[in-house]
């Protein structure tokens, strides 16, 4: 197989614009699959790279588009490479049409072999296959804040990156533990890392041009910092695992007038729900979960820290451990997927896109999903062939309105004083 080299087109364009013809630039490259596949960069990538580090040199071809291959091993002092590892040489130039071109060479002490160079396309082309369904260029300018980068928030971040959303603020103070791996987009090579930073790397793998800011903090202890981030965004996505943070974020979404999406699973992920809060127009989080249809639907407890934060301190450890009942990743994904759909509808609002009709369908602000006939859905009939009965594995939009007695979004609050 001819060795294959991937290089970012934008970096090559940059290099062509700012280097002289006789200049050598060194950048990192990473080798995979027994030194047959290479990912080359002109500078260290912003995400944690994989593969074996490999020396990589860039130069511009001369005016005739030529490079002296015969003398490359000598001129690059190739004998100093450990274990005879090759040096990757990328000779960049422009075609007569002005397009960037790249010739790849693998240089060892014994000689030079040609490799096939392929460009990772420019920002504008990366999401060309989404065009028509989504307003890709507009989504590239949209900013989302995602709070909670666990099994629910991490796939949402990744899907929005795949759709071409360009700016992310990821907020979580938790680190990736062994118990998270089976339901998380990140794997064992990210163990111990902040979830924010590990997910940032995943996002950048999908969209190397994304602008990702991370905040490793507890939203309940950094209220003004988080509210500032939300105020600078277009959409708030909440996938945190406790009501205190959701109540705080609800207030921030109202204060900043930003639409917020809340997703959560119920016990053992037997099902879940997604709430959209359109500030001052629809119900807020408190309207639904303090007194409304969401009240009493017990949240899934996926880790001890989460259980301890909501239980009184005198609850026995045995009971705390018994409350930790998690569902499968495949039970969480439908909830994350619904959040993504709603997010894309909200981020595309005002634009004529292929998903505009979805907005006509998603008229409800509160959606319920059942994975299995247990917990809150124990009395539901079996799915069978009927379309007219509630069933597992279908979304149901619930008609919910603002709670006239809500102590959070009823305005003016002082009206309470009159009663």
């Amino acid at each position, binding site marked *: 197989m001819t060795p294959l080299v991937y290089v970012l087109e934008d970096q090559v364009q940059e290099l062509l614009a700012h280097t002289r013809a006789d200049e050598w630039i060194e950048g990192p490259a990473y080798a995979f699959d027994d030194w047959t596949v290479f990912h080359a960069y002109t500078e260290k990538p912003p995400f944690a790279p994989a593969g074996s580090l490999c020396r990589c040199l860039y130069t511009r071809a001369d005016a005739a588009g030529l490079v002296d291959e015969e003398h490359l091993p000598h001129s690059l002092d190739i004998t100093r490479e450990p274990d005879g590892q090759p040096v990757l040489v990328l000779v960049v130039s422009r075609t007569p049409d002005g397009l960037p071109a790249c010739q790849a060479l693998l240089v060892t002490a014994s000689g030079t072999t040609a490799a096939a160079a392929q460009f990772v396309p420019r920002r504008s082309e990366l999401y060309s296959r989404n065009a028509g369904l989504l307003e890709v260029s507009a989504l590239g300018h949209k900013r989302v804040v995602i709070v909670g980068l666990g099994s629910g928030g991490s796939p949402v971040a990744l899907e929005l990156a795949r759709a071409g959303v360009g700016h992310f603020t990821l907020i979580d103070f938790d680190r990736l533990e062994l118990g998270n791996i089976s339901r998380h987009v990140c794997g064992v090579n990210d163990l111990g890392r902040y979830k924010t930073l590990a997910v940032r790397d995943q996002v950048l793998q999908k969209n190397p041009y994304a602008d990702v800011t991370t905040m490793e903090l507890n939203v*309940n202890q950094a*209220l*003004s910092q988080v509210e500032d981030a939300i105020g600078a965004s277009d959409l708030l996505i909440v996938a945190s695992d*406790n*009501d*205190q943070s959701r*109540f*705080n974020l609800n*207030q921030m979404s109202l*204060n900043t007038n930003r639409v917020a999406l809340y997703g959560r699973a119920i016990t053992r992920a037997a099902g879940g729900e997604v709430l959209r809060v359109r500030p001052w127009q629809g119900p807020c989080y*408190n309207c639904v*979960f*303090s*007194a409304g249809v969401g009240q009493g639907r017990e949240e899934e407890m996926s880790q001890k820290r989460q259980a301890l*934060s*909501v*239980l*009184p*301190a*005198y*609850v026995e450890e045995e*009971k705390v451990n018994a*409350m930790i009942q998690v569902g499968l990743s495949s039970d969480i994904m439908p909830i994350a997927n619904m959040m993504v759909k709603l997010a894309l509808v909200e981020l595309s609002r005002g634009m004529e896109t292929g998903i505009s009709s979805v907005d006509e369908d998603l008229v409800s602000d509160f959606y319920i999903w059942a994975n299995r006939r247990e917990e809150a859905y124990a009395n539901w009939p079996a799915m069978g062939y009927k379309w007219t009965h509630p069933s597992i594995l279908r979304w149901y939009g619930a008609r919910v309105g603002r709670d006239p*007695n*809500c*102590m*959070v979004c009823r305005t*003016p*609050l*002082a009206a*309470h*004083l009159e009663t």
Partner: protein
Amino acid sequence: MAWTSQQSARLRLEMEILSRYFPSFVLKDSIIPGRAVVEGAMRSNAGHEYVVRLRVPADLPNSVPIVEIVSPVLRDRFGHPLVDLGTSYPMHLLKPENDVVRICHYSASHWSPNITFSKVLLKVRAWIEAYEGHLDSGFSVDHYLPHMEA
């Protein structure tokens, strides 16, 4: 950091409600979020007076306020200081932070911003009656006050 306008309005509302139902309670150190307390006296049916302090959370009204009995020094039926129990399921107590008894009233899983200080103090008032019941009978507080389901 200062109170937001919503929090200031909520504090005014809380104090307005308290002025009707618990008129002895006043707001102290209200300028700095996280340091404000609401403090006042409650009298039991038997006529004993208890000074109760409610710590206003910095993220009012989104988290459970800490409630403490500041005075008198509470003792169990056998004369042992209640504060020495630390966290106590039968007595509805949480780990004390200031050498005074801290009451467990709402758990985080039952908390919502719709719950006012007045409702919290109502539960404290019930706890005081249960505590005096304990002094009379020896039964623990949870004999009189069942726990909320976790």
